[in-house]
C-alpha cells in the first residue's frame, strides 16, 4: 500500500475502478464539472466529498497495515497537500480533486483553549488542571470540546497513522504550556511483528490494545491532539457490531504490556465503559456555517445525480416540491435535516433520532445510553447478528415516526432500497434475511456503501434547502459530515490507490496528465449513472451479483502509445529454474564459507569495537536520547559488518525485552544518486512515504524537531558518509543536528574511510555537531586475519595451517583488508580444486596460496612488456635511449622513431614505417604502458612511460 504515500498527483485521486465506487461517482463527477470557480477551500471540502463510500473495504482484499488503520483526519498530510496545491498555483479544480481533503487545521490556526475553570491547582508545581479542552479552528468556526476521559486521536510521526489515546489529565504548567496526560492504545501495526503472532486470531482494523508498555511518554502537548474518537471495550469473544464497522470507532479487547496480550481486567473494562458513557453526556457546543453558494451548487449536482435513479428521482422531486412549498417552515426544515442526519448512519442511534425531531442534549445522551445498552446486550447475549437489532430498531422507528416526515420516510425507503430493508419496512420481522445476509455479506456491505452515498446526497440536498438553519440544528450535521467526510476521503484514497494498483497491474494504464484522465472519466459517467438506478429500482435484484460485476469494464481504456511505468512494480529478480547445487566437496564448502557474503556466526577480532558501539547505542536507547558516533577505517576492516552485528544483537535484546524497541534504518552514500536523496530514503524507510527531496527534508525536520509523542528511538546508519558532502553541507548538517534535538531520539552511526574526515571536509558547525564520539577501525593484523579465516572455516579442514598464516601475513603487510584475504583463500581453494582433479581430497597448501597471491598482486606491466611484439619492445628500448640522450622523461614520436630505426639497423632488421610506429604507439598507449598526447599531432606527439624505466629495463633484459 505504498501507493498511498506517493506524492499526490493531480487528478489521479478519483479514478473510478470498481463497481462499488462507480455507484457513487456520478454525482461527484457532476459536481466537479459544475462547481463554481473560486470557492473557499473549506467549502470545497464539504461539497467535494459528500458522496464517497463509507464502508470499510472487505476482508478479502489484501489489507496492508496502513490500510488497516481506521480512517481518521490525516491532518498533516492534508496540510501538506494543501501546500502543494497552493505552491503550484493551481486552480480550484486541482485543489479540490488532488487534495481531496481539506482539514480545517491547515486552513487556519487552531486554537486550543481550556474548557471551564481550572479544577485543581498545584501551587508548588504551578500547574492548573482542567477538565476539558476546546479545539477551535478559526476558519470553519468549528469548536469541539474534549473532556477528561475522552478518547482522542494524537498526531503521530506518520500522518496517516494517528495514535489512539485516552485523556487522563489536562493541565497547564508554569510556562503556560498546555499539557495532557494520556493512556495510550496501540494499534496492531505498532506491535512488533514477532509479537503479533502471540495473538493467534485475526485482528480487525478497528481493534486497538490497551497499552501498558512503559517507556512511552504519556505527557504530550495538547496541540498534538487531532480529534476525539470512540473506543469501545469488548470482551475477547465479542465482535464489534457490524453496524459500527464503518464508524470511526475503535474497540479494545486486550491489553498489551510489551510482552504479552492479556484480557482487559474488569476494572479497566468498566472504566473504559464509564468513559464512553460519560463522553456522550457532555454538552458539546458547535457552530459552523456553510456558505450558501456551495450548497446551491451541491444541490444542483445532487439533482443531476438523483435523476439517474428512478426512485431517488421521485423522492427528490417530492423533496423539491416540498421545499418550494414550505420555505418558511423552519421546524420542518430542521426536522428534515434531522431525518437526513439520521439516515446518514444506518445505526441504531441514528434511527432513534427520527423519533425526536427536536432533540435536546439530554435526549442525545439518552440515545447514547441506548446504544450502550444495546451494545451490552449484544455482548451479553452473544448475538452474532447485531444487524438484527439494528433492523428492529429501524422498524420501530419508522413505524413510530410521525406522519409529517413521510417524505423522509419515502426517502428512507429509497435509500434502504435493499431487499432486507424493504422487508423490515413492510413490517415483517423475520429472521430469514439474516441467513441471506450471511451469504451475501459482502454484497450488503457494498450496498450499504451505496446507501450511504445516496443518503449523503439526500442530506446535502436537504441542507441546501435551509441555508439559515439554527446553529443548533446544524451542529450535528456539520460535525458529523466533516468527520465522516474526512474519513471517507481517506478511505477513498486508500480504495483508490488500491484500485489503481489493480488497474495498473491489469493493463498498461495511461494517465499521464489529469486532463487526459478527465476525458476518460467523462466518458465513463453514463455507465456509472445507470448502475444505481438499476439497483434501487429493483430491490430484489440487488442481491444479484450485479453490484459486484467487476469494475473492469467501465474503467478507462488506456490510451494506446503512451505506456506508463507501473507504479506498483515489485522489484524482483526472477527465480532460478534449477536449484542451486549444494557444495559437494570439502573445498567447495570451504569456498562458500570463505565468500565475503557469507555471514559468519560471530565477528572475531572486533570484540572491543563491537562492545564500544553496542554500549553507545544501548545507553542512548535506554536513556531515550539521541547521539552521533563516527566510525572510520580503511576499506575491508569490518566497519559495516560490526555495526550490523551490533544492530542484530540489539534487536535480539529488544525481542527478549531487555531493551526498548527501536527502528533501524540504513542509508549508503554510494547508493544514492545525489546527497539530497538521503532525505528521501530516510523518510521512506521511516514512514513509507515517497516524496521529493526538499519536501522530505521538511517532513524529517518536523518529525525530529517537534516533540512527538510515543516515538520509538531510531538508529540510523549512514555508510560512506563522505559522499553526502555538498557545497553547503546542509545534508550533513541536518543529519547531525537532529540527534541534538531534544525529542528526536535519533542515534546516528556514521561510517567513512578517513579518520580526519570531520576536520578535513566538514565545516566547523557540522563537525561540532558530529561530536567527539569517534572510533577508528585499525587494519587487521596477521593474527586477526588468521583468526578470521579459521573461524570462517570452522570445522572444515581444507587449509593447511601454514597456508592460512601465509595469506594473513601477506595481506596484513599489504593492506589489512579482510576481503582481500578471503578472496585469496577462495582463489587458492579454486586453484587447488583445479589442479587436483584426479586425486580426491587435497587441502590447500602453500603453493596454491602463492599462486593465488601472484595472480592477484603481480604487476601486469612486466608481463605485458614481455609478451609484446618485437617492434614494441624495440620501441621501448628506443624510448629509453631517447630519454637517456635528452635527459628528460618525455620525447616526441619523431625522436623515438629515429632511435628506433637506428636500433633496427643495429639488429639488422627491416625498419618499420612511420605508420607502423604510430600504430605501435597507439597500441601501447591503449594498454597504458605509455602515456600519449592526442594523436592529431602525428610525429610531434609526446610520449611518456607509465612505468618506471627500471621496470622496463628489467622486463626487456631477460629476453
Amino acid at each position, binding site marked *: 500500500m505504498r501507493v498511498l504515500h506517493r506524492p499526490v498527483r493531480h487528478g489521479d485521486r478519483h479514478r473510478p475502478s470498481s463497481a462499488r465506487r462507480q455507484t457513487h461517482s456520478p454525482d461527484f463527477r457532476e459536481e466537479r464539472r459544475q462547481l463554481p470557480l473560486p470557492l473557499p477551500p473549506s467549502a470545497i471540502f464539504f461539497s467535494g466529498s459528500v458522496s464517497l463510500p463509507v464502508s470499510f473495504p472487505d476482508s478479502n482484499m489484501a489489507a496492508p497495515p496502513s490500510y488497516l488503520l481506521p480512517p481518521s483526519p490525516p491532518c498533516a498530510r492534508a496540510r501538506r497537500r494543501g501546500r502543494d496545491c497552493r505552491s503550484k498555483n493551481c486552480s480550484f479544480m486541482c485543489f479540490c480533486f488532488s487534495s481531496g481533503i481539506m482539514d480545517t487545521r491547515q486552513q487556519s490556526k487552531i486554537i486550543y483553549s481550556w474548557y471551564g475553570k481550572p479544577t485543581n491547582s498545584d501551587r508548588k508545581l504551578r500547574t492548573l488542571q482542567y477538565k476539558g479542552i476546546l479545539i477551535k479552528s478559526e476558519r470553519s468556526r468549528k469548536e469541539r470540546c474534549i473532556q477528561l476521559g475522552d478518547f482522542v486521536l494524537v498526531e503521530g510521526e506518520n500522518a496517516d497513522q494517528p495514535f489512539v489515546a485516552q485523556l487522563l489529565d489536562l493541565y497547564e504548567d508554569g510556562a503556560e504550556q498546555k499539557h495532557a496526560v494520556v493512556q495510550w492504545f496501540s494499534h496492531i501495526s505498532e506491535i512488533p511483528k514477532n509479537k503479533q503472532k502471540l495473538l493467534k486470531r485475526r485482528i480487525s482494523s478497528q481493534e486497538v490494545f490497551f497499552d501498558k508498555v512503559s517507556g512511552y511518554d504519556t505527557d504530550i502537548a495538547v496541540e498534538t491532539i487531532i480529534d476525539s474518537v470512540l473506543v469501545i471495550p469488548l470482551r475477547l469473544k465479542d465482535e464489534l457490531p457490524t453496524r459500527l464497522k464503518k464508524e470511526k470507532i475503535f474497540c479494545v479487547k486486550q491489553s498489551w504490556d510489551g510482552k504479552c496480550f492479556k484480557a482487559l481486567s474488569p476494572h479497566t473494562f468498566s472504566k473504559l465503559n464509564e468513559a464512553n458513557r460519560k463522553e456522550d453526556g457532555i454538552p458539546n457546543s458547535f457552530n459552523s456555517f456553510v456558505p450558501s453558494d456551495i450548497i446551491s451548487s451541491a444541490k444542483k449536482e445532487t439533482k443531476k445525480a438523483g435523476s439517474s435513479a428512478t426512485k431517488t428521482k421521485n423522492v427528490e422531486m417530492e423533496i423539491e416540491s416540498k421545499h418550494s412549498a414550505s420555505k418558511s417552515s423552519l421546524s420542518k426544515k430542521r426536522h428534515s435535516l434531522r431525518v437526513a442526519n439520521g439516515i446518514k448512519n444506518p445505526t441504531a442511534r441514528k434511527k432513534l433520532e427520527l423519533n425526536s425531531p427536536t432533540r435536546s442534549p439530554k435526549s442525545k445522551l439518552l440515545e447514547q445510553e441506548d446504544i450502550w445498552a444495546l451494545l451490552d446486550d449484544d455482548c451479553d447475549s452473544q448475538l452474532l447478528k447485531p444487524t438484527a437489532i439494528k433492523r428492529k430498531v429501524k422498524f420501530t422507528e419508522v413505524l413510530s415516526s410521525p406522519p409529517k416526515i413521510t417524505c423522509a420516510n419515502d426517502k428512507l425507503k429509497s435509500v434502504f432500497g435493499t431487499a432486507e430493508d424493504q422487508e423490515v419496512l413492510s413490517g415483517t420481522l423475520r429472521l430469514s434475511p439474516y441467513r441471506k445476509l450471511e451469504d451475501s455479506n459482502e454484497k450488503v456491505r457494498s450496498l450499504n456503501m451505496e446507501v450511504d452515498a445516496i443518503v449523503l446526497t439526500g442530506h446535502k440536498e436537504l441542507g441546501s434547502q435551509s441555508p439559515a438553519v439554527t446553529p443548533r440544528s446544524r451542529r450535528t450535521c456539520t460535525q458529523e459530515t466533516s468527520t465522516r467526510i474526512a474519513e471517507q476521503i481517506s478511505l477513498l484514497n486508500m480504495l483508490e490507490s488500491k484500485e489503481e494498483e489493480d488497474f495498473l497491474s491489469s493493463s498498461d494504464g495511461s494517465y499521464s496528465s489529469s486532463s487526459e484522465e478527465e476525458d476518460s472519466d467523462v466518458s465513463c459517467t453514463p455507465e456509472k449513472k445507470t448502475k444505481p438506478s438499476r439497483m434501487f429500482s429493483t430491490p430484489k435484484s440487488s442481491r444479484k451479483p450485479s453490484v459486484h460485476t467487476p469494475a473492469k469494464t467501465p474503467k478507462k481504456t488506456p490510451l494506446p502509445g503512451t505506456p506508463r511505468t507501473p507504479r506498483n512494480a515489485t522489484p524482483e529478480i526472477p*527465480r532460478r529454474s534449477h*536449484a542451486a*547445487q549444494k557444495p559437494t566437496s570439502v573445498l567447495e564448502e570451504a569456498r562458500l564459507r570463505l565468500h565475503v557474503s557469507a555471514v559468519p556466526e560471530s565477528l572475531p577480532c572486533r570484540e572491543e569495537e563491537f562492545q564500544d558501539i553496542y554500549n553507545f547505542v544501548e545507553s542512548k536507547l535506554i536513556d531515550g536520547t539521541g547521539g552521533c558516533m563516527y566510525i572510520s577505517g580503511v576499506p575491508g576492516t569490518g566497519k559495516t559488518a560490526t555495526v550490523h552485528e551490533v544492530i542484530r544483537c540489539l534487536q535480539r535484546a529488544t525481542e527478549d525485552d531487555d531493551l526498548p524497541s527501536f527502528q533501524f534504518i540504513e542509508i549508503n552514500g554510494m*547508493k544514492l*544518486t545525489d546527497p539530497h536523496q538521503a532525505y528521501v530514503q530516510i523518510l521512506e524507510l521511516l514512514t513509507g512515504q515517497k516524496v521529493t527531496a526538499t519536501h522530505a527534508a521538511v517532513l524529517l525536520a518536523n518529525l525530529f524537531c517537534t516533540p512527538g509523542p510515543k516515538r520509538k528511538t531510531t538508529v540510523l546508519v549512514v555508510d560512506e558518509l563522505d559522499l553526502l558532502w555538498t557545497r553547503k553541507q546542509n545534508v550533513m548538517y541536518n543529519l547531525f543536528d537532529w540527534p541534538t534535538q531534544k525529542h528526536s531520539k535519533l542515534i546516528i552511526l556514521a561510517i567513512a574511510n578517513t579518520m580526519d574526515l570531520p576536520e578535513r571536509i566538514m565545516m566547523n558547525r557540522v563537525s561540532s555537531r558530529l561530536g567527539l564520539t569517534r572510533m577508528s577501525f585499525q587494519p587487521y593484523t596477521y593474527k586477526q586475519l588468521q583468526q578470521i579465516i579459521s573461524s570462517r572455516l570452522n570445522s572444515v579442514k581444507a587449509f593447511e595451517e601454514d597456508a592460512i598464516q601465509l595469506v594473513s601475513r601477506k595481506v596484513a603487510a599489504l593492506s589489512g583488508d579482510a576481503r582481500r584475504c578471503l578472496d585469496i583463500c577462495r582463489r587458492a581453494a579454486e586453484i587447488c580444486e583445479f589442479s587436483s582433479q584426479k586425486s580426491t581430497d587435497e587441502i590447500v597448501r602453500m603453493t596454491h596460496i602463492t599462486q593465488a597471491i601472484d*595472480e592477484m598482486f603481480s604487476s601486469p606491466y612486466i608481463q605485458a612488456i614481455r*609478451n609484446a611484439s618485437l*617492434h614494441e619492445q624495440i620501441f621501448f628500448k628506443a624510448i629509453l635511449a631517447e630519454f637517456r640522450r635528452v635527459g628528460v622523461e618525455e620525447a616526441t614520436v619523431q625522436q623515438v622513431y629515429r632511435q628506433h630505426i637506428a636500433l633496427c639497423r643495429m639488429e639488422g632488421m627491416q625498419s618499420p614505417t612511420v605508420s607502423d610506429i604510430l600504430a605501435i604507439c597507439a597500441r601501447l598507449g*591503449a594498454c597504458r604502458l605509455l602515456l600519449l598526447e592526442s594523436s592529431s599531432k602525428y610525429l610531434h606527439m609526446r610520449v611518456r612511460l607509465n612505468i618506471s624505466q627500471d621496470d622496463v629495463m628489467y622486463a626487456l633484459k631477460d629476453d
Partner: protein
Amino acid sequence: MELRGEGSGGVGRAGKARRGRSREAGGQAARALLGIEREGRARARRRRLTASPQIESSAMNKRKLKESSGTDGECISQVQKMLRERLCHHRAMGKLFGIDQQYKHLLELLKQTTVCGESNSALIIGPRGSGKTALLNRVLKDLREMKQVKENLLEVHLNGLLQTNDKVALKEITRQLHLENVVGDKVFGSFAENLAFLLEALRKGNRTSSCPVLFVLDEFDLFVHHKNQTLLYNLFDISQSAQTPVTVIGLTCRQDILELLEKRVKSRFSHRRIYLMNSFAFKQYIRIFKEQLSLPAEFPDKAFAQKWNSNIQLLTEDKTVQDILQNLFHYSKDLRSLNFLLMLAVSNVTVRHPLITASDLQEASKQYRMDSKANIVHGLSVLEICLIIAMKHLNDVYEGEPFNFQMVYNEFQKFIQRKAHCMYNFEKPVVMKAFEHLLQLELVKPIERPSVRSQREYLLMELLLDNNQIMDALQAYPNCPTDVKQWAASSLSWL
C-alpha cells in the same frame, strides 16, 4: 600542374605493371600446384613437338576453364564466404588460440555462479585484438549449452561506449533484466528511483533461490569515469554480499585499471584478473595462420578442400610466406592484424585464380603496411615536392623549429636561382597555392590557430614528415628531376 598529373599517372602505371607481373607468377604457381601438372606436362611435350603450341594451348586452357568454372565457381564462392566469415567475425565465433587456461578459468567461474549461485567478479585484461570478447563469447556459448545452466542465467551486456553515464546504464540494466518497471521496451522514472528499484530487486534475492545475473561490462575502463563510480560500487557490493548472485565481468585493455578504481570499489572487487597477453611464439603463429586458412572437413567439395588445404600446407612451408608472417609477427602479435592480412589475400581468390599464393600474401602485406603519409607524397606535384624539400632543409638547419611560408619560399627561390635552367620559376601566388594544398593534405600543420590579424605568409608551421619518409617517397617518385633529387639528398641546402 601538368607535372603532378604525369606523376600520378606514372604511379598508376607502375603499380599496374607490378601487379601484372605478380599475378602471372602466382598463376603459374597455382597451376603447378593444382592437378593441371599432367596437362602442363602434356602441353610441354606438345610444345616440343609442334611449332605453334602457343595458340593451341591457350585455346585448350580456355576450354578447360569453362568446364571447371561451373563447379569451381560454386566452390570459390563458398570458400570466400566461409573464410571471410571466419576472418571478419572472429570475435563472435572465432576459435581460441593459446588461451586454454583462461578459458577454463572463466568457464569455471561462471559455472560457479550459475550452478552454485556464488557471486564473483573478474576482469579480463588484454591488449586490443587479443580476443577478450571472443573468449567471453565462447565461454558463454559453451555455458548455455550446458544442461544445468540452460535458462538459469540472466545476462546484462553493457558497453562503456554506449552507456556513458550511470543513469543510462541503469536504465539499460533494468531493461535487459525485464524488471517490472519496464514498460514495453522503455524504462521511465528518475535516476534515483531506478537505482533504488534495481538495488531493492537485487537485495531481495538470495543465493539459493534467485536467478544469477551476469553483468558484462565491455570497455570497463570507461565505467570508471562515471560519477562516484556508483554503478561499479553497487555491482561489486552486491557481488560481495548475500544478495542475488551476480557475476561482474569487465573487459578492458588498460593494464592500470585497478589503479583507477576508487579505494572502496577496489576493496569490493575480488581482484580476479584474467590476462590475455598474446603470449604465443612464432611457431604457434604459423599454426594459427594455417588453421585460419584451412577448410574444414565438412566442406562439400572434398576434392577442392583437399587441394586447398595442401596448398595452404605448402604456403606455410614457403620461405617468403614465412618471412611475411615473421615481419607481421614482429610488428604486432595480435590476431586481428593477421586476420586483416589474410582477408586481403583471400579477397584475391577468384575462379581464374583459385588458390592463394605467396605473392598474394606479399601483395597484401605490402598493402597492409603501407605508410600513409608517404603515399600522399607520391601524388604530389614537383613544385610541392620542392616545397617539402625546402621545409626539410629548414628543419635541418633550425633543428625542428617551426617555419613560415616566407622562409620556405626564400629557400625555394635560392634553389631556383641556382638551378634556373631546369626549373620554371613559379610566381609567389602559385607557390602559395601549392603550400596551401600541402596544408590541406595535413603534411604541414600550423602550430597556432590562424587568426585574422596574422598574415598567412608568416603563420608558423611544422612539417609532419620525417626525413626518411621524404627520401623514401622521392626514391619511389616517378620522373623526378635529378636536380630536385640532388637537392633533397644534399645535406647542405645551398648546394
